[in-house]
């Protein structure tokens, strides 16, 4: 057991004094949950009853608890979290998971509530017994050392042209390298050249633009990783930006000087508000800030005349904010493990001060161990797909079921218990979202009340009175409406990407349940509001919770004796393609499956979250940080269905 703890214990001998301290002090333990507390709850694991509390950042965590799913990329992020936790620390893993590059866990538990309940006593015991160990060793996974060594090397050779981004930042590399090369050769990047080939099956929008915009700003550039997303060129939405002609900046019209080797002809001079130029300002920021970051932006150290430096000259090519001031943009990760956001959501924000100029969600890597199992016998496909998204397994189970039924040319009999399970999952999913949203907006009561109700409903799913009371209370919370109403409006041209509650809040009656005969019998009418903002989305989710409660009752009354249709999955000869649509809690999901001799050989899933990711990348900009995070949280993106 000790060998498992060498990466967590403090270095030194364990005296009885230290042991006493450990025994007393390490009663209150904080857990950092990977991939996230939303997944933990969706798995039916309640942390509150264990006496453990959730750590919001690795520095205050004692235990790193991994529940999975943990695809390769996330495992590296989890290793970074573990490396950043102060010792004595513990690694605990639930279920059978491959967690490399993390070390062997000190505690392995079954993926059950009983397993979770065993965590605290076991952790206390281990920490008391081995909080200090003479044989403690540094946890030094190779990839972290490589990244750090790479960074130091860059620091040593400033201006050598090596890349800014580490291997930890997928997505940003190709474009940046390309731009840098173009930049060096003095070429102008052809407009749209980089952006067009990656569109894939989705639409391309061209919106009317402000008349006075230089043509170069229309370039839309996206990293190749975003292949499945749509591209938009949006009209300026922010009214506070100054028009180009009235720039308050005196520096622009001065001739370029003291820029040996750097010729920024590719970039049109003139103020470039972030709302218009899509990715261009940020790319400029990256260009101007080469290598180690410690270096000054826009300055070539060797060629610079050191006698006098004019700030006007030095900053003239930096991106402008809405007020025309040239500042340096910083870039920070707000995921995959950020409190309040869905666990596993790989979000990066480009910041101008505390203004978000751009939000980028990078799709995670697919779980290779899952992908390897295709082709799959039809019988195993539905549970397999249900495991894709731990947040809403029932919805995807139903989806797979229906698609297979169509592929096998079976009558599309809907099973009432499945629909009831779907509606109950909807309530649970919305509540699960609300708990995390309570963290994002810093509302202690909302978080606790939602969590309380969540576990109440998990025990007894049918409690209309409790749900109704909760919804009424949330609606009456002071200041909540005011603080959410003005936030997160999706521009009209992008609205058709919205699905589920996001679309319904904006007045789009887009719901797959409308077409379902059983739902029609139950008198289902989608909830629609004309509040295209965070408050509207919250309202729709609350109303949907009430509606789902009602639907469960109505569906149950429809045909109480109808037996669950048995699913003939043993048909070895079945072949064909099937397509089905289900309204998951996050929106309409469509699945196409190809079936050959009883085996699922290929499938295509159109999940609502993938569209919402495209939304985030397009329209979250020029918002205050808190508002941007609220907006992103309000879309309720499930990171598990958006793998690249």
């Amino acid at each position, binding site marked *: 057991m000790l060998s498992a703890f060498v990466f967590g214990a403090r270095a030194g001998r364990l005296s009885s004094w230290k042991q006493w301290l450990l025994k007393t*002090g390490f009663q209150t333990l904080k857990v950092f949950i990977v991939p996230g507390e939303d997944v933990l709850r969706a798995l039916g694991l309640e942390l509150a009853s264990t006496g453990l509390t959730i750590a919001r950042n690795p520095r205050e965590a004692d235990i790193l608890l991994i529940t999975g799913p943990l695809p390769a990329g996330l495992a590296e992020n989890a290793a970074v979290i573990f490396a950043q936790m102060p010792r004595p620390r513990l690694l605990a893993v639930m279920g059978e998971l491959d967690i490399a590059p993390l070390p062997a866990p000190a505690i392995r538990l079954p993926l059950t509530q009983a397993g979770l309940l065993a965590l605290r006593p076991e952790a206390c015991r281990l920490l008391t017994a081995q909080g200090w160990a003479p044989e403690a060793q540094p946890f030094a996974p190779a990839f972290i050392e490589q990244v750090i060594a790479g960074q130091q090397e860059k620091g040593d050779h400033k201006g050598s042209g090596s890349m800014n981004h580490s291997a930890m930042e997928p997505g940003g590399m190709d474009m940046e390298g390309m731009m840098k090369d173009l930049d060096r050769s003095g070429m102008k990047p052809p407009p749209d050249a980089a952006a067009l080939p990656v569109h894939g099956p989705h639409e391309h929008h061209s919106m009317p633009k402000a008349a006075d915009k230089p043509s170069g700003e229309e370039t839309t550039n996206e990293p190749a990783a975003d292949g499945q997303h749509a591209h938009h060129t949006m009209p300026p939405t922010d009214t506070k930006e100054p028009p180009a002609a009235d720039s308050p900046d005196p520096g622009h019209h001065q001739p370029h000087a003291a820029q040996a080797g750097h010729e920024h002809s590719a970039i049109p001079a003139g103020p470039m508000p972030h709302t218009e130029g899509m990715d261009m300002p940020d790319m400029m920021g990256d260009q101007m800030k080469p290598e180690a970051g410690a270096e000054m932006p826009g300055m070539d150290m060797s060629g610079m005349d050191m006698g006098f430096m004019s700030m006007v000259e030095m900053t003239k090519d930096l991106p402008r904010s809405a007020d025309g001031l040239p500042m340096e943009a910083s870039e920070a990760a707000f995921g995959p493990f950020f409190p309040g956001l869905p666990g596993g959501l790989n979000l990066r924000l480009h910041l101008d001060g505390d203004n978000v100029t751009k939000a980028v969600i990078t799709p995670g890597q697919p779980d290779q161990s899952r992908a390897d199992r295709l082709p799959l016998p039809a019988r195993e496909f539905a549970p397999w797909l249900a495991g894709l998204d731990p947040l809403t397994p029932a919805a995807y189970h139903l989806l797979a079921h229906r698609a297979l039924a169509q592929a096998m040319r079976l009558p599309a009999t809907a099973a009432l218990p499945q629909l009831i399970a779907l509606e109950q999952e909807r309530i649970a999913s919305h509540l699960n979202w609300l708990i995390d949203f309570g963290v994002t907006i810093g509302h202690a009561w909302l978080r606790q009340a939602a969590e309380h109700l969540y576990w109440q409903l998990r025990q007894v799913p049918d409690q209309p009175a409790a749900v109704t009371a909760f919804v009424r209370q949330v609606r009456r919370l002071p200041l909540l409406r005011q603080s959410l109403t003005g936030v997160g409006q999706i521009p009209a041209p992008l609205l058709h990407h919205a699905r589920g509650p996001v679309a319904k809040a904006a007045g789009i009656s887009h719901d797959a349940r409308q077409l379902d005969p059983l739902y029609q019998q139950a008198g289902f009418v989608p909830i629609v509001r004309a509040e295209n903002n965070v408050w509207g989305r919250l309202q729709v989710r609350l109303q949907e919770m009430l509606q789902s409660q009602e639907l469960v009752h109505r569906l149950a009354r429809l045909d109480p004796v109808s037996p669950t249709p048995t699913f003939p999955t043993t048909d070895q000869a079945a072949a064909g393609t099937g397509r089905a649509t289900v309204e998951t809690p996050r929106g309409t999901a469509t699945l196409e499956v190809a079936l050959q001799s009883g085996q699922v050989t290929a499938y295509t899933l159109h999940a609502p979250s993938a569209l919402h990711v495209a939304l985030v990348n397009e329209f979250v900009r020029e918002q205050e940080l808190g508002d941007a995070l609220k907006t992103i949280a309000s879309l309720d993106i499930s990171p598990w269905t958006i793998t690249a």
Partner: protein
Amino acid sequence: MENPLTLLVVLLLFGGGVYALAVLEYWSVAGQLAWGRPARLVLHLLLQEEIRPRQSDTVLYETAPVLFLAAAALAAAVLPWSADAPLLGLATGALFVNAAFAYVMVAMLMGGWAVNGVYAMLGGWRFLGQLIAYSMPLVMALTATVMRAESMLPARIVTSQLALWNIVYQPIGFGLFYLAALALAFLPPFDFPVAAGELAGGVWAEFTGTRLLLFRLGRLLLIMTLALAVTVFFLGGWQGPWLPGFAWTFLKTLLVAASFFGVGRYLPRLRYDQLLEWSWKYATPAALVNILWVGILLLL
């Protein structure tokens, strides 16, 4: 100060109050009262490794937690607990309290900058914005109490409320001071520099072990001091029947502090720039109206 026994009682009450606040604080986020928790937390923080971020500004990093604690402690020192036990009778006490509070912001700024991390930096500069927002309502409300007492001596401000407490005499001032105190202690809904949901801990995220302990202790002390300030300046300080003066001060202070924690439970976090806007467009003019109101009352 004259009576060592009173001083001891006051110090004990203050310590006990701070401990009770720690319990209350956990209640405000977790909804349960855990009486042993703060003591365990102290040991816990002592036992943890201390990680200093690389490329940090060592001087500022080391100064910030100590300055934070010192600022809160010094502000507490000049506020009287009872008629015969002012820890310190500073003639410009009301001003001094403000001065000490200003260094809470300086400490947070230092901490935010020193770490050289994006979250902390955002938190630090946010808190300066917060100071710009709460500062004017705070000092102007305080000035109005000074007008009535004709002195900046906190004990005189208490005695000036013999006939009528300032909460009734100048309710606008009380409201502004109360909200400003919430913002000063960066309690929810104003917890901008250390917000979990926006900055994952912000300024404090990179402080571990004893340095974090100093910050946490300082913040509890700060809340206690602010509650004490509300008591002294607006709730008649030690005045009350039956019980000795310091007991009244203690009870009122604890009640105010509990209300600090309670308010934040039911409110969503605001935006600091909205706070700035409200402060300058509405709160500062309201504070001036309050001064005018007190001025007219005093002339009648």
